């Protein structure tokens, strides 16, 4: 079997990245409803699990998942996010690709674990909230005093940044199972997956 990426593979990467991003974007729009914004890491990877698991049925070679991650990072950047999503997408995309590779792109266990890891890339979009915190904290301590600043620090602790990554991972695991179930119910019967 030829292990180099063919043009056909690259085209499928493009198609599924587009589908993934549209669904991802629709989920992100729901995040403008205030309470849902906090829940974003919990439901987003779950829903995008369906297109991703379908994508995995087409993936047979190393590099396809990494390219998808890079594209997602670039498009996040082009639509006005920072460079942080590109970095997280690169890291988690490559890691996920390695996990899929060890399962030879067949094993369901590896797919579940790999998608869990892959899901964490999107949290790069939320990380600036913590990265830009220093300047914000400095600003409010100048105008409101230290007591108030401490209150803000206690509301948004550093561990929350770690927590969103874990939430995304757990939700990704759930999404992989959901995706698999949908695949079984609809796509295998139709002969697409």
């Amino acid at each position, binding site marked *: 079997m030829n292990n180099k*990426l*063919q*043009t*056909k593979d*690259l*085209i*499928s*990467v*493009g*198609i*599924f*990245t*587009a*589908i993934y*991003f*549209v*669904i991802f974007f629709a989920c992100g729009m729901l995040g403008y409803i205030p309470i849902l914004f906090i829940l974003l890491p919990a439901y987003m990877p779950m*829903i995008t699990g*369906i*297109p991703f698991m*379908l994508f995995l049925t087409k993936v047979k070679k190393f*590099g396809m998942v990494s*390219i*998808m991650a*890079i*594209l997602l990072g*670039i*498009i996040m*950047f*082009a*639509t*006005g*996010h*920072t*460079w942080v999503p590109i970095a997280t997408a690169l890291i988690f995309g490559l890691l996920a690709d390695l996990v899929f590779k060890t399962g030879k792109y067949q094993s369901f266990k590896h797919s579940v674990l790999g998608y869990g890891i892959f899901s964490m890339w999107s949290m790069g979009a939320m990380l*600036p909230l913590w*990265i*830009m915190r220093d*300047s*914000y904290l400095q*600003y*409010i301590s100048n*105008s*409101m005093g230290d007591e108030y600043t401490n209150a*803000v620090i206690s*509301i948004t602790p550093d561990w929350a940044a770690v927590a969103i990554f874990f939430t995304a991972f757990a939700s990704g695991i759930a999404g992989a199972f959901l995706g698999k179930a*949908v695949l079984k119910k*609809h*796509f295998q019967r*139709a002969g*697409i997956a």
Partner: protein
Amino acid sequence: MQTELLQSTGASHKHLRLDPRTKLFIALITNTAAFSGNVWYLMVALAAIPLSLLFASNKIKSGVYCTLAYIIAVLLNELVMPATHGIPNLFIAMVATTLYRMMPGLIMGYYLVTTTTVSEFVASMERMHLSQKIIIPMSVMFRFFPTIGEEARAIGDAMRMRGIGLGSGRLFKKPMAMLEYRMVPLLMSTVKIGDELSAASLTRGLGGPVKRTNVCEIGFGVQDIAILIIGILIFIAFTIN
């Protein structure tokens, strides 16, 4: 008129045309600088670049909306935030800082995707010597966004006809079923269209061993250099602060 993320037809030659690489570079500057500085006049100067670019490429309506939104964000940040206390302050601060820092980048992103055509984008990526492994999926992706939107609208119409519309209240009663009704047909049809697209573009020689030619003329002009100098100056001002 269909909405496209990157247009397939070019803008007319009357308006200001920038090289896509200039746009990408300015986007990089705005995104990085917006998260590092905190001086309001510099932030305004930074936001002024994409805003003036919007006006220069005849996107008056969106330019006016964006300008108004940014003025509100700056006012919230500079006047309302110091004047409030307690929980309202926390809430206003969250909204205002996000808008204040994200908007220059968002406007630049909007300008980038609405004024660049897919072919121009591909041509500039080839000039930057990016790998075909990135260029091919990316051009397919941009080609595919409008298709997905079209399919989604058609499915939405069909669902409404059967009374399973988003407004029927079932979204909250059976969210999983609603998700299934929407997503499964969408995936089915887009995957099929994707296969056809793949066959069609292979037939037309995508991925052939020969270097492909491109009809788009891209290159740096006086306007590119001017914009780049302004961008770099503002970026330096940010780093000095």
